[in-house]
């Protein structure tokens, strides 16, 4: 499992899930919030990194669920159910066309609900260069 993360994700999201300031959103303590806003569950598995990962549906499903549990267990919706292989398979046929727009909408919704402080979007709080 970790190897799939290492090969496909950690170059940008980093081994500790802290991302890169301004370019790569952090996963740690953040990514699970998407499961708490309408449309967020769908968004998470339609972003380019997931849709075009060079992994089959089964391994990708395991990886996405592992990533959420490992880096953001506290932020997950209380009624969160792990993604199913079928869900991932269908999502990969519908890549998001406007990732930035949809992300901005979901972030604004998180802020409106008080899940995120104003100005915080997972990018400004990502790891800064040393």
């Amino acid at each position, binding site marked *: 499992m970790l190897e799939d993360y*290492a090969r496909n994700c950690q*170059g940008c999201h980093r081994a500790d899930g802290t*991302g*890169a*300031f*301004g370019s790569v959103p952090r996963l740690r303590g953040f990514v699970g919030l998407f499961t708490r806003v309408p449309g967020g569950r769908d968004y998470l598995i339609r972003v380019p990194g997931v849709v*075009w990962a*060079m992994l089959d549906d089964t391994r990708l499903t395991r990886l996405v669920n592992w990533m959420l549990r490992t880096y953001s267990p506290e932020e997950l919706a209380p009624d969160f159910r792990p993604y199913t292989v079928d869900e991932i398979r269908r999502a990969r046929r519908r890549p998001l066309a406007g990732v930035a727009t949809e992300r901005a909408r979901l972030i604004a919704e998180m802020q409106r609900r008080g899940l995120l402080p104003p100005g915080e979007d997972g990018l400004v709080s990502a790891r*800064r260069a040393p």
Partner: protein
Amino acid sequence: MREPSLLDRLVERVTRRVAQKSSRRGFLARLGATVVGGVMLPLLPVDRSGRLRRAHAQAFAEQAQTRDDTACNYWRYCAMDGYLCTCCNGGVAECPPGSEPSPTSWVGSCINPDDGQVYLIAYRDCCGKGVCGRCPCLSTEGEMPVYRPQLSNDIDWCFGAKSMVYHCTTAGLVGRA
């Protein structure tokens, strides 16, 4: 004239029937489909990528060495595209003074010829200082085109660093694959 033999008559009948019922184009089309199909079949998605990748990595490993990290055939450089930081006052995994490591890297895998094992390698650019220009290396193991940027080594990997100016590239060990 001698009566045609049984074999002659049989062959003639079959030949005439084939000639009447089939077209040469149809035959060519079927032959083409068979030939191309035979070639394409192994390319159908049956997870050959792992084996292919391994085969390519093997080819690099066969001429790789583990002693001189300032040479392009040093084992960790199987997917290196850039200037070696080891030739620019840095280390195989350390940026030279005056440059900063990019927080992002792309992860490939190389075989260590000493133990034959596959290791994950993080290719991390050092940024914020003018281009070094020494020891340019271009290896392509596992590399993808720039429209798959997370696995492309052609692009500037200084995302997230304070400066996008590229200096050189390191090859840090992530772990055993």
